[in-house]
């Protein structure tokens, strides 16, 4: 049998997969659009509620429901980008887009409260309560499914970014927006689709989060976004690979601290953020910008 510590490490790694996926969406949006999507947390909660509606009212299996929620979140992301982010330009764009995302998050949170109230709900299916014994570890099925989904989604993301023409356009936009525009890339379209993809992954994240968190409310977005922001900043803004590693490291650290100090385990994220940024302001995997302003 695995010890308590080994068990925590296993749960941390598996749980880290899904945070890695959500953080990858966030850091992709940052890399291409140069905005911090603080609405990512509430998008995850929205994705979870969409899964909830489908499973309770239409009796769809959670995994089948993803076939609907992922495209739905993609469309929501594109619409939000087109209506609220795209028009923002000028010197104050950084803070403006951040605040616009915050405003969108507030509206979504308010609508969710209106529709679903403040009671905790959670997602359930036959695989959310069962578990398997593997190499002496006691692993809930949903953690394995979530990890598998995250790996599959990130593989898809990798293929899109590195094996398609569109992905080439995305990477070009990440490197230099003006140059990308000059060689004929429609930066607005690339940005809209990127925002959509970054939002679509929250449908998967939301489904798994809704099943493993043991209950969520519209208010859960704050907890999520603070963790996700900590992960992407720690990793270094815009580094997708770094976000994956950092997500797994942080959830594992949290799971370990949780053994001794359940009340303070969340603080691991923020403390690590503060300590590491005092030593290395560009983050663990970030490159120092030539002239950050």
């Amino acid at each position: 049998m695995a010890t308590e510590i080994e068990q925590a490490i296993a749960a941390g790694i598996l749980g880290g997969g899904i945070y890695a996926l959500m953080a990858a969406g966030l850091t992709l949006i940052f890399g291409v659009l140069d905005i911090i999507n603080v609405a990512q947390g509430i998008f995850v909660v929205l994705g979870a509620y969409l899964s909830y509606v489908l499973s309770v009212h239409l009796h769809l299996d959670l995994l089948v429901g993803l076939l609907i929620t992922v495209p739905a979140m993609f469309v929501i992301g594109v619409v939000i980008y087109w209506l609220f982010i795209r028009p923002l330009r000028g010197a104050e764009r950084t803070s403006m887009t951040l605040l616009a995302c915050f405003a969108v998050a507030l509206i979504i949170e308010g609508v969710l409260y209106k529709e679903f109230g403040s009671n905790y709900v959670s997602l359930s299916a036959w695989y959310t309560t069962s578990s398997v014994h593997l190499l002496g570890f006691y692993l809930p099925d949903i953690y394995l499914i979530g990890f598998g989904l995250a790996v599959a989604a990130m593989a898809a993301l990798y293929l899109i970014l590195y094996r398609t023409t569109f992905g080439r356009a995305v990477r070009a936009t990440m490197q230099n927006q003006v140059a990308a525009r000059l060689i004929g890339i429609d930066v607005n379209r690339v940005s809209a689709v990127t925002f959509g993809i970054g939002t679509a992954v929250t449908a998967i994240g939301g489904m798994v989060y809704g099943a493993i968190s043991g209950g969520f409310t519209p208010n859960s977005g704050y907890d999520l976004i603070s963790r996700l922001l900590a992960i992407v900043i720690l990793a270094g803004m815009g580094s997708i690979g770094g976000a994956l590693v950092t997500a797994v490291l942080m959830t594992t650290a949290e799971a370990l601290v949780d053994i001794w100090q359940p009340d303070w385990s969340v603080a691991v994220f923020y403390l690590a953020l503060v300590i590491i940024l005092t030593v290395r302001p560009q983050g663990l995997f970030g490159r120092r910008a030539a002239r950050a302003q």
Partner: protein
Amino acid sequence: MTAGQAKSIRAGTGPADQLRERWLAPCGLAVLLVFVAVFPLLFPNPTATNFGVVTLIFVAVAAAWNIFSGFSGYLSLGHAVFYGTGAYFLVVAARDWNLTGAAVFWLVPLGGVAAAIIAVPLGLVALRVRRHTFVVITIAFFFIAQLSASNLGITGGSSGLLVPVPTSWNPATYNNPFYYLAMLLAAATVALSWLVRRSRFGLQLRAIRDDEDRAAGLGVRAMPVKLTALVVSGFITGMAGALWVYFIGEAFPQFVFDPLFDLAVVLMAFFGGLGTVAGPVLGALVLEPTQLYLNLQQANGYESEILFGVLFLAVILFLPRGVLPTAAEYVTAARARLRRGGWPGRTGASQAQAPPPAADNPAGTPAAGSAP
């Protein structure tokens, strides 16, 4: 442009215009001050003075936030940390030192000092990074503070703490001491913000906002300047928090450290005009009573939350530079059109659009074009 043309342009800003520019703002300010001062006499209704106290506290906080974030361009979404520090300092100190009644008010400046002390290490860490990363660090500090308040013994945890409210005071005029202290705090903060904007220090802050590396190259010692602004801002925010918590009479972690507080303050500054003196004041005077009224009308919080978000989006999309700079732009454009009347020409138009000198603008209403 010929000398004759230049002369006729100067003639455009005639004595009437100068008079308006020099006297309009101070007179408006005086009227506003008198109105605020007699407000509790005109509307002695406790609900009205209650609105007044909270609104004036937010005037102080929005102006204080603006002294740091508006002038330096470092957007802080963590000022609730200072607000909450001041608040908890007052509650805990009043309990441990057995203070009641008017004596508790002496703890308000001490609450500000506590917040200022917290601001030093926070600033030393957070001000090493810029832009997005700075914003996120302030959010992280906010969550650390909220988490600590929920879990530490000294704050009473999530069950909260009560402040012994002065029961012997006359209920009819109970709000008045709070009201006049909040007014004093708000007026002092606005005056300070006006002084800072006109000072060398304020110029350094705005140089940092426009281009920090270049400012440093020109000899601005960026870190001490930014840190001073943050500490001053935190000091005032802490005092406001301490006064507010004594007024409310209870301290719960989720209300003392409220993410909506941060957003509300930022919205106020953006609504009125970021980096201006009058903007955040206008924002607080318009938005806080609206918010309180909506809360009063609707028992459920979500509708005001949705409205708040919609309003925020509307301001960002349609008034991205705030009401006052946009209004100033319209006024300048209208004047330019008037002046162009019998004297068309491109040079005239471009001259008329140039901002009026800032010195003729005592309330700090920003000239069109001076805002970024």
